[in-house]
């Protein structure tokens, strides 16, 4: 009896063709009063796919942590020696370049950079200035030279273990210092 009536009602509803959501949504929600009271307060925004993938990712990348600076590394002869090689080399080359370029423009500026003039001027300097200056310039030269030989040894894949790199690093420091003092005494 009951099942018969249920089947009848279902048939009647199909005949009327009401939209499907009417069956799913409870009656309380479909009335206008209920809609106001059940408003969701979570903020949402429409995003295009490009915004979702690129803009948000770009914004996240901007707030990524910055990798720490050199100061976090323990001072070691390996990397100190390496950067010293570059520093000494660029100072030597910088000075070499500067003299070459200045020698070219000197006649137009009225400067005298001839060897004889420079030697005569340098000869008048006091020894306390000359000796340290010569020692420093000589050390840049000897350090870069000896460390260059060290680099060429590595290029032939020798002396390349951690221990050897440390030993040769200090050996280069010692050798270049002795050689620089020797050259400054000339």
């Amino acid at each position: 009896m009951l099942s018969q009536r249920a089947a009848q009602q279902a048939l009647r509803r199909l005949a009327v063709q009401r939209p499907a959501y009417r069956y799913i949504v409870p009656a309380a929600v479909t009335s206008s009063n209920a809609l106001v009271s059940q408003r969701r307060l979570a903020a949402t925004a429409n995003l295009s796919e490009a915004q979702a993938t690129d803009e948000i990712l770009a914004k996240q990348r901007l707030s990524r942590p910055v990798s720490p600076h050199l100061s976090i590394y323990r001072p070691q002869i390996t990397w100190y020696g390496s950067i010293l090689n570059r520093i000494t080399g660029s100072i030597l080359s910088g000075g070499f370049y500067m003299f070459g370029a200045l020698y070219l423009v000197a006649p137009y500026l009225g400067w005298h950079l001839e060897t004889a003039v420079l030697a005569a001027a340098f000869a008048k300097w006091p020894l306390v200035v000359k000796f340290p200056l010569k020692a420093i310039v000589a050390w840049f030269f000897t350090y870069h030279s000896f460390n260059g030989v060290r680099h060429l040894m590595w290029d032939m894949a020798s002396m390349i273990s951690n221990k050897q790199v440390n030993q040769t690093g200090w050996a280069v420091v010692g050798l270049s210092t002795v050689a620089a003092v020797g050259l400054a005494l000339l």
Partner: protein
Amino acid sequence: MASALRPAILRHALGAPASTRALTTSALPAFRAHHLAQRSPLALQRATFQTSTKRAILPALPQVIRGTVNDPVTVRDADPTHGSYHWTFERILSAGLIPITLAPFAAGSLSPVLDGALIGMIIVHSYIGFESIITDYLPKWRVPITRRILEWGNVLAVFVVGWGYYEFETNDVGLTEGIKRIWRAGSSSSSSSSSSSLTS
């Protein structure tokens, strides 16, 4: 460990009311740290995670995402012209600099041809050195204009400096002899040589 060197930040992160601080300072240091960690785990984590000073040396540029987030890296076909020949040339040049640098120490000075060769080798060696410094510290994607200016400036410098040393070699005493005379200027062992250079 390193956070212990920055007590100011730790103190700030763990800033507690006077009453609890009085309690905690009287306890054993080890227990105190434990107690504080329990009290404000987030603040402690933040204070101890970053162990070095935060210095934004180069702030991040506006980020651009090319392709999708999960694209594979494009790998070019290996070719010796991409650097292998350059590498070999650099080593040959560097190795060649050794005898020509030692020669004036043994012989006193160099003949004009060898002196010119030494200058040329030093200029090319310097060009390669400056080029690698530019490549290492000035990425194209960050400073494209500066990079381009310096790369061309490096090429220009080769010619300007080369011209300068051409003038020096043709009008003066030569690089090795010149360095020797300036180096020994005024020293007692070679007062005669410096005076002779003055007259020449």
